[in-house]
């Protein structure tokens, strides 16, 4: 199919008119255009009828998604259908445009994007990295939350791809795309796409459902944390795969996780998988164990995959184990040596940090200026993973005096330097001292 020329008008299903401004991107089965629709800029995804197998199924699914509406505002959802071209049967749909502050996931994985200088037209490489570990872990939490929202309406991804979502690398905010491939559990859109994200049972002909989506989620999270592929190691590299059908066996029936503890035939190779090799050495065991489970026992048995709650708990733990030092470096505490049971030492500058022990968990949270206590950390029943309940702050009038500010709506009971417990209400603070104890209600913490 030829590309639409700039300026061409495409009609919406109900007669609105959108003018093609330029091409945003080209996929294997479609082209995405920037369009002017009334006073708004929108994106139009237009399918190539020669390359799509189940045009009618895809059409009906998008139409249903338009009607059902988005799970929440974290999805670049299908907003309106176009009219169907009477000659070719081709069609498309309109969605919101990705804001400039969001990066393509594939660029985040690669660590760079290629940009063209507007004046010289030269291509240059621009770094795409998370600003800090907090942003990356927040992206993980946001991705899990997006999958949760999807599952709440009984839908799952049928063909997520590298271009399927966008991340703000400063904040960890996530926008999910590829929404035309979201469909109710058990439906068969039969979309031809790279096998990487698909669950083995789906590659084997099964229908996507909640469990296959949990596998897809594990793949997404692996790719984000380790910036590499979960199944591409020596076994896959040395096999001569001529097409994606042949490649699919390495993600389905013959899949071997690159760090399968019982099978070392598919280990990553230096020069090809350097990111994975580096980061596998840096993440805590509980994160690595989660992926080992997902891609070994969870590969064969969908019931043994990590649930959304489990992923959420792991990422919340990971977030609480970040140590951001004033020297500018941040680390997971699993990566750094402890001075003793309670003191963490920055491996970059040697600065020492105290920590807090919470009554509902075995690991300690390092304390540094700017570190946050989240609602879900002090209230085990909270289904809110993003709200900040407290923050470690430095007194503006008396620099060096460190305290914790209660940012929640609850009243806390805090043991003060006078040895007595006092109420600390919302907006108030209290000093961090050696004997500090905090009763949050359902959870208690000790300095």
């Amino acid at each position: 199919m030829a590309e639409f020329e700039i300026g061409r008008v495409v009609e919406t299903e109900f007669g609105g008119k959108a003018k093609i401004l330029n091409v945003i991107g080209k996929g294997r089965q479609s082209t995405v255009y920037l369009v002017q629709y009334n006073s708004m800029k929108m994106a139009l995804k237009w399918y190539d009828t020669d390359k799509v197998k189940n045009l009618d199924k895809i059409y009906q699914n998008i139409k249903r998604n338009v009607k059902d509406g988005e799970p929440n505002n974290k999805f670049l959802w299908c907003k309106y259908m176009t009219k169907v071209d009477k000659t070719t049967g081709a069609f498309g749909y309109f969605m919101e445009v990705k804001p400039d502050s969001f990066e393509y996931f594939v660029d985040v994985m690669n660590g760079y994007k290629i940009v063209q200088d507007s004046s010289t037209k030269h291509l240059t490489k621009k770094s795409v990295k998370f600003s800090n570990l907090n942003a990356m872990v927040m992206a993980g939490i946001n991705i899990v939350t997006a999958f949760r929202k999807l599952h709440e309406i009984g839908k799952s991804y049928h063909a997520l791809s590298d271009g399927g979502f966008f991340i703000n690398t400063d904040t960890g905010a996530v926008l999910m795309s590829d929404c035309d491939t979201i469909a109710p559990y058990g439906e068969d859109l039969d979309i031809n796409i790279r096998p990487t994200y698909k669950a083995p049972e789906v590659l084997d002909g099964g229908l996507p459902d909640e469990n296959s989506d949990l596998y897809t989620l594990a793949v997404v999270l692996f790719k984000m944390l380790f910036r590499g592929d979960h199944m591409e190691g020596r076994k896959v590299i040395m096999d001569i795969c001529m097409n994606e059908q042949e490649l699919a066996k390495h993600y389905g029936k013959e899949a071997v996780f690159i760090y399968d503890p019982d099978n070392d035939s598919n280990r990553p190779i230096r020069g090809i998988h350097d990111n994975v090799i580096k980061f596998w050495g840096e993440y805590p065991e509980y994160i690595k164990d989660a992926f080992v489970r997902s891609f070994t026992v969870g590969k064969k048995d969908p019931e043994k995959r990590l649930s959304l709650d489990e992923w959420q708990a792991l990422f919340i733990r990971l977030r609480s184990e970040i140590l951001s030092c004033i020297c500018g470096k941040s680390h997971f505490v699993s990566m750094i040596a402890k001075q003793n049971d309670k003191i963490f030492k920055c491996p970059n500058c040697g600065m020492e940090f105290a920590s807090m022990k919470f009554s509902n968990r075995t690991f300690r949270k390092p304390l540094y200026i700017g570190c946050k206590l989240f609602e879900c950390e002090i209230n085990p029943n909270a289904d809110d993973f993003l709200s900040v309940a407290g923050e470690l702050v430095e007194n503006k009038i008396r620099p060096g005096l460190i305290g914790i500010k209660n940012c929640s709506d609850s009243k806390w009971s805090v043991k003060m330097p006078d040895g007595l417990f006092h109420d600390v209400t919302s907006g108030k603070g209290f000093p961090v001292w050696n004997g500090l104890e905090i009763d949050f209600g359902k959870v208690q913490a000790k300095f």
Partner: protein
Amino acid sequence: MFKGFSRSVIGASHVKKGIVCQDSSDYKTGNGYAVAVVADGHGSKKHFRSHVGSKFAVESAIETIERFYEDRERLERELTENHEMIIHNMEKQIVAVWHDKIMGHFAENPVTAEEKKQFEEDEFNKIPVESYYGTTLVTAIADENFTFGFQIGDGSLVAVFDDGETAMLMDYEESNPANITASICGRNAASMFSRFFVGNKKVLAVFVSTDGLYTSFGKDSDFLDYHTIIASQLSDINTFETSVVKNITKRTHFGTEDDISLSCIYNSEIVEEKSMILREKILNKRKKS
């Protein structure tokens, strides 16, 4: 029928410094295809085994291409549809094979005191083993139905087609966006290759060369003309070899005075049939200038 030629010549600057030729080159002709390869070992201090690394890179490329051509029919069938994926798989395999080779060499030949003496202890400990063997790699494959190639790092690839067109199908900038020097020894090397595939033209000859040759020319057009001229001489391979070796040896005294490697693969039937077009092209150009 495909035939080939390859030669590496030590650069004048290397002779002056008393260092070995860091380049390697080779070619291989198979049933219905041929492959030409050159590699330019980085040669600087931390790449103290790059002459070995470049030899391994050339071997790895030829072995990998031969492996992919074991089922030639299937490869030819699939390449037209999936060349991006297949060529990238070749690149990855080459990196993997090269790693195995250098690690094998390193295991059998631990770093000697002589090699180590130019470094401070801390400085030496920071150099990854791969860097000892660092090199570029340029590979061209000519098939009866198409031509393709890939490269990592600098170097040139020039194709001469049966209609007389001479073209550089990959260039230095393209393989190094933002001036990042790519090397097979680098982190994530497999993602730093650039590649091309031409499926609709018959190739007369393809030349790959290390950058010593390119930098010995002042202009791209002179560099391309040079290839047109030497391609026109391929009908007499003995004369071609003598003249090209003499010429590239002379050229190691120009430009960066670097080593020069040139590998060439050509279709002898097309050369026989179409050399005249090239000669006419050269004559016309001379008349115009």
